[in-house]
């Protein structure tokens, strides 16, 4: 959890906006540090967290969270965290074993025509089971609103269902990471499901976007050791006081145990 980012986003573990759909995207850069940030933030905020980690193993996330002061293993034991390890699951789908008790969540790998319905059902069932089943078993802990974090899986329909269920019905939050490769194209006349259009569609759905972008090439040469990239924060509030979009641009540097954010061009190393 980066306290600096919290103050930018005006959130703390004690008070954060509920029912938000947060889109984290990156281009020629890596925004996964933001996923770690949100993961530790919501765990500290005592939310029930469902993490769909599809690109890395549990150990990877666990090691990073440990450095940020949150124990994933503990949270998992307490039933606060449900972790879907996409790599393991997909392996068991592709190479089925007899002892396999794997869930149906990754069924779309075997049969693409099924779509992500099964994964959505997994989300729904695990949210309801952690809510009710656990509380009956050992009600020493009571968790806040549910949060779904998705590391790099972006399908518009799936994200829509997550938003409808988690944000609207359960008043929880959804965080999604998506990646776009390559340059920003002004007009791509590709098919409707191209990555650019996907990002635009997600942007239409979400209430907050964090877009991490690589620095321009000429700057990279000078600032490689100073700044990593810049992050664009954009709110699309849907409130009664009217349409309100706000943009902020920051540059940041990730350290061992935190990250520092500053307005463009105001890094102490540059000045």
């Amino acid at each position, binding site marked *: 959890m980066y306290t600096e980012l919290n103050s930018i986003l005006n959130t703390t573990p004690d008070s954060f906006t509920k029912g938000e759909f947060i889109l984290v995207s990156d281009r020629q850069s890596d925004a996964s540090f933001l996923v770690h940030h949100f993961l530790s933030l919501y765990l500290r905020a005592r939310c029930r967290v469902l993490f769909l980690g599809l690109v890395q193993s549990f150990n990877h996330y666990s090691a990073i969270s440990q450095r940020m002061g949150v124990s994933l293993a503990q949270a998992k034991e307490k039933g606060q965290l449900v972790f879907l390890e996409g790599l393991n699951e997909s392996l068991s789908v592709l190479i089925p074993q007899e002892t396999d008790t794997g869930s149906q969540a990754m069924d779309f790998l075997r049969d693409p025509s099924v779509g992500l319905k099964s994964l959505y059902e997994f989300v729904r069932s695990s949210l309801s089971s952690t809510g009710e089943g656990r509380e009956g078993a050992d009600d020493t802990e009571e968790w806040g609103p549910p949060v779904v974090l998705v590391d790099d899986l972006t399908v518009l329909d799936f994200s829509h269902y997550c938003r*409808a269920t988690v944000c609207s019905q359960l008043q929880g939050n959804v965080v999604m990471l998506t990646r776009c490769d390559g340059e920003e194209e002004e007009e791509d006349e590709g098919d409707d499901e191209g990555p650019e259009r996907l990002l635009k*569609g997600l*942007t239409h759905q979400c209430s907050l976007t964090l877009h991490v972008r690589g620095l321009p090439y000429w700057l990279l040469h000078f600032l490689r050791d100073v700044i990593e990239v810049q992050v664009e924060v954009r709110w699309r509030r*849907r409130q*009664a006081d009217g349409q309100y*979009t706000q943009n902020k641009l920051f540059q940041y540097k990730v350290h061992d145990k935190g990250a520092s954010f500053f307005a463009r061009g105001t890094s102490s190393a540059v000045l």
Partner: protein
Amino acid sequence: MLTELLQGTDAGGFLLIQDSTGYCGRHLLKSFIGAALNREEVVHVLHFEVSEEELTDGLKGSHIQRLHFHNAYTDPLGWTDHPAFTVHQFTLEELAHRVKQTSHSKPVTLVIDSLSWVLRHQSPPAVCNTLQQLRKGGAVRAIIGLLHADMHQRGTVGSVCHLATSVITVAPGMKGDEAVAKLTKRSKSGKVMQDEEVFSIKEDLTVMVQSRPSHVGGRQNDAEEQETDPTANLTFNLRLSDTEREAKEKLALPFVFSREKKTALLHSGPGSGRILYEPDANDDYDQEDPDDDLDV
């Protein structure tokens, strides 16, 4: 023209609000819903993208009983057991049936939020066909649709735009809550009107049209001119006193052809000179008109 459109869409009209990631057109859509409710119309909303609570948020309570929701938000693809409305039900028969269920004698306005959802799951020709039949078939009086234009291919957006009688393209404005609307309206006679307006939407969803963007620049200049008076520190006099004006009016200007001037020129006095020309025998006199080749 935006206020004009808000005041009423013609029967059989199809109004399309186009937006992009930069500015969300949903608030304008809600203003249109509010305006239709104020006109005592029955409004059916087919909502895919936001929940019912979000849509009713801001609309006044008294008219809400004339607002009917068809929930396609919670389960648009039929992934759960009891979908309320799925995207595959977006057909003429189904929509006409649903609209008729709450049948009133009053005209029905159908609001679709948004067409992008339908276009992603059905072929554009099928969607266009359904829309056109709904409009012409008399099942609904008017259709108001929202479309995220940057999510589709240009051809798809174009073909939906061709169906619409009015197209409003919204984009972010210069200041905080301002937005720019590009309006195209096709009247039944075939006349096409285009306009561009700056607007903002207040809390109670009323639309404030500020001005046309082309006029915004002009106004700013006016304000600047008022601040600095260019005639303040002149080295010459701009105004005339009465005597000066009299003297000015008496003076005959050189290019004014008065009677005296005319006679003085025509009847030259005895002392004036004349030019006499006697052709010499050796003179090389050209018979042809030297200006013959000129096109005069």
